[in-house]
């Protein structure tokens, strides 16, 4: 197994770990961290698999730079929403879905 495949598998590991954490952990900050970890996993997969050919493929690199910027935008929004939820409810987790 070559090293880039190894990194692609690490990327899958990160994605799965993040997905699990985002479902299981109630604290919003932890969910935000988990989504970021998931994103990193996808980015790693995207770039690592491009190493299969000898010449460097710049298209995934550009995609990942785009993705990183999108990720910080989403994180900034998530953080401000989290602070507002804390301000309104006094808690940093989502209420259970009421069974109406």
């Amino acid at each position, binding site marked *: 197994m070559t*090293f880039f*495949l*190894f*990194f*692609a*598998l*690490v990327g899958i*590991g*990160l994605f*799965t*770990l*993040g*997905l*699990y954490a985002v*479902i299981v*952990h109630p*604290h919003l*900050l*932890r969910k*935000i*961290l*988990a989504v*970021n*970890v998931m994103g*990193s996993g996808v980015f*790693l997969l995207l*770039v690592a*698999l*491009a190493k*299969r*050919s000898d010449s*460097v*493929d*710049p*298209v*995934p*690199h*550009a*995609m*990942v*730079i*785009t993705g*990183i*910027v*999108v990720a*910080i*935008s989403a*994180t*900034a929004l998530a*953080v*401000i929403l*989290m*602070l*507002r939820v*804390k*301000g309104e409810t006094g*808690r*940093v*987790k989502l209420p*259970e879905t009421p069974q109406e």
Partner: protein
Amino acid sequence: MTLLPLIFDGVLGFTLLWLAWQLLGSPDLFRAIVLFIAFGLLMALIWVRLDAPDVALAEAAIGAGLTGALLLAALARLGPPSETASLDNQGDRASVAEGGGLPFRRWLVALHLVLACGLGYAVMSLPSAAPGLSDAVANSLALSGVSNPVTAVLLNFRAYDTLLEMGVLLLALLAVWSLGSTPDAPPDDQPVGGVLALLARLLTPLLLLVAGYLLWVGGRAPGGAFQAGSVLGAAGVLLVLAGWRLGRRFAQLPLRIMLVAGLVLFMAVGLFVMLVGGDFLTYPHASAGGLILLIEAAATLSIGMILAALFLGIRPDSRADQ
């Protein structure tokens, strides 16, 4: 000596996974965020290993640095850690009970293992030669106006993506400003240390220089608008931390103009070349280099300002009243 890189990669990859495991599981949120910053730095190392220096720069500046700063500031605004930690733990127990407890988690773990195996199988079954676009990029690189292929993709071949992405960034700022009346941070009881102010004074000119360099060099070597912009954003964060604020006069329209300058110029150039007679964003080959540099310069300014403003978290003019 072929063994050494193998060990290095192995250590890097497993440490990354271990860090992710730790940061997602540790009960202390502060620790989790610090681990997340370390995680970002390791990612940057891996990008270098994968021959993606442009991504490494962006990851180190944005992924690890600015995201980490954003999260730390958020944690500080959430209030004393003891309270949030206890709430967190309560919630933890509650959610386990709600979700059906241990059996539910077992199912979830099993499901994720299946998912990971499936994905792993998918990756392993890919053909060993990548059918990527490296040849297509290389063939058209001479016409793109820049010699760094990543910049060529970002600002010429797939410039439309980048334009929309600048829109995402601006939208995030709009969102943060619209929702921004956050419960105020615990009032800054500490007077800002002289050391921090000194650091800001020393580093800001240097960061500006680095940003300018990254912008300039981005056409032919790793660098470009996003990397330069994030360095500029880091300078802004440093200034914000050192207690510096925009003067009230500039916090209104002039600030907003700087925030949108990148996107507006991008769109304007795209439309201009369309009027000259191509499709949208089709730069004439002769002037492509200059146009790209122009767009990147405005984009750097806007990205830097937006990132710093995202860190600040509220409208600068709303603060001036206090």
